[in-house]
């Protein structure tokens, strides 16, 4: 497989791929499970707004929660059935904390709601974006950012290049690979649609050179189109959007800018396939391909309805081979341990790895940092991980921020190369969330200060007003003559009334 011209970014690592484990079998469809648990927050941004209540009958593809605000995404019923409860359930998140979920009991008829393909070539842009807000499509590469936000065009900076991210750089994960092999047409169609919607002149697919079958399939599907398929070397983390842009075009995205500021938009292959299915077939986002691999009997890829309990997925893969039953969501570099095997499959779940002592030996004891700076050599975003480690470890958070902690993409290259086995990324995650929490409480304190100052000012003002009123009253009391005048007028009027009444009686 011929490598195209590329621009190598700094650092990166080449961990053992372990991809062939799960690419031996075609995509299998998981049977409809006994219940589906759909978290209301499966995307970045605002939690989706409920549109159903317990007891409601829903059809496959029916919207059950709508996007709340612009950075939010809708959720659809993955099959027909009945909403049985809306409750707090454990979700696949490193915290292991519960969040609001809709539980659906399927009726196993799998009845579709009327599918309405969208005539995207005929309707105008605002209508198209409106339609996309209802699609529930989010970035399926793992970032789960609502797709309709990425399809907006800004007048200031038109999009010139659409990059389709087919790198899938993390070990073990093969869901994009298998999708490209089997559904290359959908991806290419989706890419063309997206390119047209964005008005991009060019569309480039970036794929790592370890996915030969996928490359061939894409090449075949893209034969009569202007889409360029470019092969980049297998180098983790080439799948990070900004790294991929650099690999393909040699353009470095400044840390305070987004790639769209440079006229480049990036979509994952699975996302453009979902866009195709939504526009051309009228199917909203209700399922995805999930890799189940590691210590399971038959590692493979499944097309899974969102909300399917993880335990069903494990059973479908022949069951687990270990007693510990520890599962990692995502890849070994950036993934996290799942809190339970009852968590549902969500839009972000691209891969589940069953951990075993052979695959992932217990972490070696940590030794002190010797400042060898291997982490700095490996860092793909050109940070100084050894400094960040120092500041994070000693909770010098402001210093860590100064050293651009928030540019860290948490790819784990630094931890991977560290000869002292220091869990560097864990320190960065700790420091980041601590800084975010501090900023929030600072903001809350500022609001409290403002509210307190406003209250004090109000009390002061009211006091002054009351004093003025009293002063005015006192002034009125002094003005006796005026009052006597008033009294005599009133008395005169009373007199007149009396006279009138007497006259009336006489008459």
């Amino acid at each position, binding site marked *: 497989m011929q490598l195209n011209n590329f621009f190598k970014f700094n650092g990166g690592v080449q961990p053992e791929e372990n991809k062939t484990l799960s690419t031996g079998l075609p995509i299998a469809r998981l049977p409809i499970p006994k219940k589906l648990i759909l978290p209301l*927050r499966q995307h970045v941004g605002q939690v989706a707004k409920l549109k159903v209540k317990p007891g409601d009958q829903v059809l496959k593809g029916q919207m059950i929660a709508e996007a709340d605000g612009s950075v939010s995404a809708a959720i659809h019923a993955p099959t027909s059935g009945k909403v049985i409860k809306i409750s707090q359930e454990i*979700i696949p998140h490193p915290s292991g904390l519960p969040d609001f979920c809709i539980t659906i009991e399927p009726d196993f008829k799998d009845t579709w709601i009327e599918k309405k393909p969208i005539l995207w070539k005929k309707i105008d842009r605002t209508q198209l974006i409106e339609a996309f807000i209802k699609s529930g499509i989010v970035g399926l590469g793992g970032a789960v950012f609502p797709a309709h936000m990425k399809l907006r065009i800004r007048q200031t900076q038109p999009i010139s290049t659409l990059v389709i991210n087919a790198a899938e750089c993390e070990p073990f994960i093969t869901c994009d690979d298998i999708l490209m092999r089997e559904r290359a047409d959908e991806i290419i169609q989706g890419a063309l649609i997206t390119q047209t919607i964005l008005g991009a002149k060019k569309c480039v697919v970036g794929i790592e050179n370890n996915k030969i079958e996928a490359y061939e399939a894409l090449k075949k599907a893209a034969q009569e189109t202007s889409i360029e398929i470019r092969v980049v070397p297998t180098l983790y983390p080439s799948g990070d959007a900004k790294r991929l842009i650099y690999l393909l075009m040699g353009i470095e995205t400044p840390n305070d800018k987004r790639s769209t500021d440079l006229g480049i938009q990036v979509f994952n292959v699975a996302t453009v396939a979902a866009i195709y299915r939504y526009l051309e077939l009228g199917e909203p986002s209700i399922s995805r391909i999930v890799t189940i691999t590691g210590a399971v009997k038959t590692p493979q890829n499944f097309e899974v309805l969102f909300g399917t309990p993880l335990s069903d997925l494990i059973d479908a893969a022949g069951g687990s081979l270990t007693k510990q039953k520890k599962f990692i969501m995502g890849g070994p570099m950036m993934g996290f341990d799942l809190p339970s095997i009852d968590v549902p499959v969500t839009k972000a779940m691209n891969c589940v790895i069953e951990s075993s002592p052979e695959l992932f030996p217990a972490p070696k*004891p940590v030794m002190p940092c010797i400042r060898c700076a291997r982490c700095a050599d490996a860092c793909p975003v050109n940070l100084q991980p050894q400094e960040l480690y120092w500041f994070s470890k000693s909770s010098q958070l402001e210093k860590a921020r100064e050293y651009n902690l928030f540019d860290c993409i948490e790819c784990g290259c630094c931890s991977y190369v560290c000869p002292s086995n220091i*869990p560097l990324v*864990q320190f960065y995650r*700790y420091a980041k969330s601590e800084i975010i929490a501090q900023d929030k409480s600072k903001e809350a304190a500022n609001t*409290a*200060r403002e509210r307190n100052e406003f209250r004090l000012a109000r009390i002061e003002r009211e006091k002054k007003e009351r004093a003025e009123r009293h002063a005015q009253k006192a002034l009125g009391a002094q003005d006796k003559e005026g009052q006597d005048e008033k009294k005599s007028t009133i008395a005169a009027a009373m007199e007149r009334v009396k006279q009138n009444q007497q006259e009336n009686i006489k008459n």
Partner: protein
Amino acid sequence: MITALLVMIFLAILLGLVLGYSAVKFKVDGDPMVARIDAILPQTQCGQCGYPGCKPYATAIAKGEADINQCPPGGDAGAKALAELMGVEFKPLNQEHGIQKPKSVALIDEATCIGCTLCIQACPVDAILGAAKQMHTVIASECTGCELCLPPCPVDCITLEPIHENFISWKWKYPIYNIQKAQEA
């Protein structure tokens, strides 16, 4: 001799004018030190320090009348930050003023509330909503957990509920791991 004198007088007048103008033009309102201290204080406005709010306490610290360790909501961390700012020795929180409690918000038992408005008058940040003989409620997002609404309530229907960690406020914990035992000599 005369020239030198004239030059000096001219310079004195010129510089005097510049300084006088700057004194008026760039005058700083209030004590900048107070604002800097106030920025560190947690703004709960609870008065546990012995002053009627965070700003009065900040003013007292700036004047040297109050110590830096009288703020229970700020805790040791707050005292440390103040010590750093003031250039004085760090002192742990003075327990006489209270202990640092987990962040909480007030909750009104709406069934018991008689609508007396006493808590509304006590709230330093206007976080209680209600009217005479109407049920009151706490705007949880604005409540600082200062506890000032507790004593005036005649029916004791207000409690302070600690804020539980949820999915949004969850934080990654400080990493804990095994370290390599040094080889014995």
